[in-house]
């Protein structure tokens, strides 16, 4: 084990190398570029035994990775923003084919106008596709979760592709000390590749031709949903196993911070969870009992884990870094729907902040939460469920 200063992007590249990925296919886009560059360097220097397919587009990047994975080897790709939307057709196809592979998404807002800064519009746009989707808070989590994602996605109870998300620049280009596990440790942890089927010459296998029976076709969709539900247990098992090997447990689908005695909860995901921790500490010193629920996996959605914490809460404030225009933030929509479906009557509010990369500090978060909590303490409810927060 060795601790190295690594950017989030290099952490993703090291994880792909340690996972013994055999085919990398990627097309450069800011801010994902240094993942591709690092992997190209690993391969050319002979440090990584893999083939790099230097494709002409993101659509082809995921197509080539999918072809390689369908052919029986571990494959990896990475993208951001417009590139992710360009490959969106393939995103659905890979999940529908039940082919495990892993993609890093360096989250970046969408144009127009051209803008390279982070928000979660791109990654949240994939949430209905059938992929496992997680967001990392720091670079260590990027590395750990990328390796773990191979194990989770290749588990026969799951057999779906997985996304590891990391925020543009805040993680992708920021250097932090990262504990890089030994190859032997990763080899012990990751079994040889498993997948539902492999395309081989001479083996009659048809994937994706027109269905005779639409009930069967609909059942395939339900199977994807059920496998994502089943993935919850796998994610927890793998988290525990990785924790035993490395000492780093994250808590499965969510991670809680100062939740035990909290009356008000804030919910968020991604790099700004680090700022939320500081906001919680600062609010706590002012006597406000706030807890933080960090959503690690947005798909499968940690319904049970979140409900368990907030069942007796006085309020829930969900921070979204993207919006489903005309409705509300996607994280909020999930939380609110599951609260309602479970019959939990707790005031819930959506704060939309940091969209298009607008900087958000821990003071901003504390400020927004303080005002919201004050309102709910005084009136017992939120006068509006949605707030566009632009800073103090």
């Amino acid at each position, binding site marked *: 084990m060795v601790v190295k200063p690594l950017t989030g992007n290099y952490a993703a590249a090291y994880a792909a190398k340690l996972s013994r990925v055999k085919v990398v296919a990627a097309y450069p886009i800011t801010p994902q570029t240094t993942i591709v560059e690092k992997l190209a360097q690993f391969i050319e220097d002979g440090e990584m035994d893999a083939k790099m397919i230097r*494709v002409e587009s993101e659509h082809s990047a995921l*197509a080539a990775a999918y072809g390689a994975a369908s052919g029986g080897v571990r*494959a990896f790709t990475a993208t951001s923003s417009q590139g992710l939307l360009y490959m969106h057709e*393939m995103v659905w196809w890979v999940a529908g084919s039940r082919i495990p592979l892993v993609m890093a998404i360096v989250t970046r807002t969408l144009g127009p106008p051209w803008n390279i800064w982070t928000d979660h519009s791109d990654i949240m746009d994939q949430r209905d596709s059938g992929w496992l989707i997680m967001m990392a808070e720091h670079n260590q989590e990027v590395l750990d979760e990328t390796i773990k994602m191979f194990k989770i996605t290749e588990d026969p109870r799951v057999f779906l592709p997985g996304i590891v998300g990391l925020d543009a620049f805040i993680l992708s280009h920021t250097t932090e000390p990262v504990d890089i596990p030994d190859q032997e440790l990763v080899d012990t942890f990751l079994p040889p590749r498993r997948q539902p089927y492999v395309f081989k*010459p001479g083996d009659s296998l048809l994937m994706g031709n*027109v269905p005779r029976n639409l009930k069967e076709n609909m059942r395939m969709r339900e199977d994807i949903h059920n496998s994502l539900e089943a993935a919850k247990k796998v994610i927890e098992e793998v988290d525990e196993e990785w924790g035993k090997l490395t000492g780093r447990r994250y808590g499965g689908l969510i991670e809680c911070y100062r939740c035990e005695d909290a009356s008000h909860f804030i919910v968020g995901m991604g790099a700004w969870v680090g700022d939320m921790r500081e906001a919680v500490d600062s609010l706590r010193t002012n006597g406000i009992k706030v807890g933080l629920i960090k959503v690690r996996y947005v798909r499968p959605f940690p319904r049970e884990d979140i409900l368990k914490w907030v069942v007796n809460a006085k309020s829930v404030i969900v921070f979204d870094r993207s919006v489903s225009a005309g409705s509300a933030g996607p994280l909020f929509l999930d939380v609110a729907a599951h609260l309602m479906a479970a019959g939990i009557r707790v005031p819930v509010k959506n704060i939309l902040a940091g969209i298009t990369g607008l900087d958000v500090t821990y003071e901003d978060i504390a400020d927004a939460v303080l005002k919201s909590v004050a309102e709910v303490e005084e009136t017992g409810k939120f006068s509006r469920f949605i707030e566009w927060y632009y800073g103090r």
Partner: protein
Amino acid sequence: MPVTLRDLPKEKLLLPGNASCPGCPEALGLKYLGMALGKKIILVVPAGCTSIIQGLMPGGAFIYPTLNVPFASSDAVAAGVSAAKEILGEDAVVVAWGGDGGTADIGFATLSGAAERNDNIIHICVDNEAYMNTGIQRSSLTPYGAWTTTTWRGKRENKKELPLIMLMHKVPYVATASVGYPLDFIAKLRKAASIKGFKFIHLHAPCPVGWRFDPSKTVEVAKLAVETGMWILFEAENGKVTISPPSRPYADKSKRKPIEEYIKLQGRFRTLTKDDIKILEKAVDDAWNTILKLVSK
């Protein structure tokens, strides 16, 4: 070495009772593909008629393993499969089988990318000269003057010279073929399979439904395309161009049949005027002049 009937396996890798239309040229092509390459094939199929011809899930008429993929992705998926098979040490011939849309239009950037990278695959463009699967809409490979459901008075633009565009990618192997000349096609497939790198075969595939001719005449129409010089059979190994035997006589303009013999069989050309026919005749002459300049002396 020329292929003869005796060289061909009896086992069929395309089963009868598949979902192709009567007289379907793609079904012929798929049959010849199996005869040429046997059980080494892994087929990658973008959206198109072949998505339908293979039949309904959970059944299927294809014996060769087949991966159906989105329209613009076939060559990239095939490149990935090919990379995996090479890494695993399996002897496979990965074939992307796309129509004129999946090859020359929506699939073109993917095709060009795989060609430039020299990915170890064969791309076959099965060219029925329009988007037949969606109901006969024009493509960049529809010829001048042809009726389609998006060119009711006949297409006003020329057919794109796709084989020459692929030749200019400097890939190890480019060939044209026709469902009317199966032995020539099979020989080209076998040669392509023996070469490492990117191989492109453009298969002319007259479609009775879309071209409006009797389904019993698919092969006749295909042959007339060659005999009138409207479709030129050639191959290029490492850029070295040779005219293939069935087309050789027609390098001499006087040996070519009048293009009216080809045109009159097809309802899609029924609105052609005398001037339109002159334009098509000139296109034939131009195509021959170009290819003969490229032929290695």
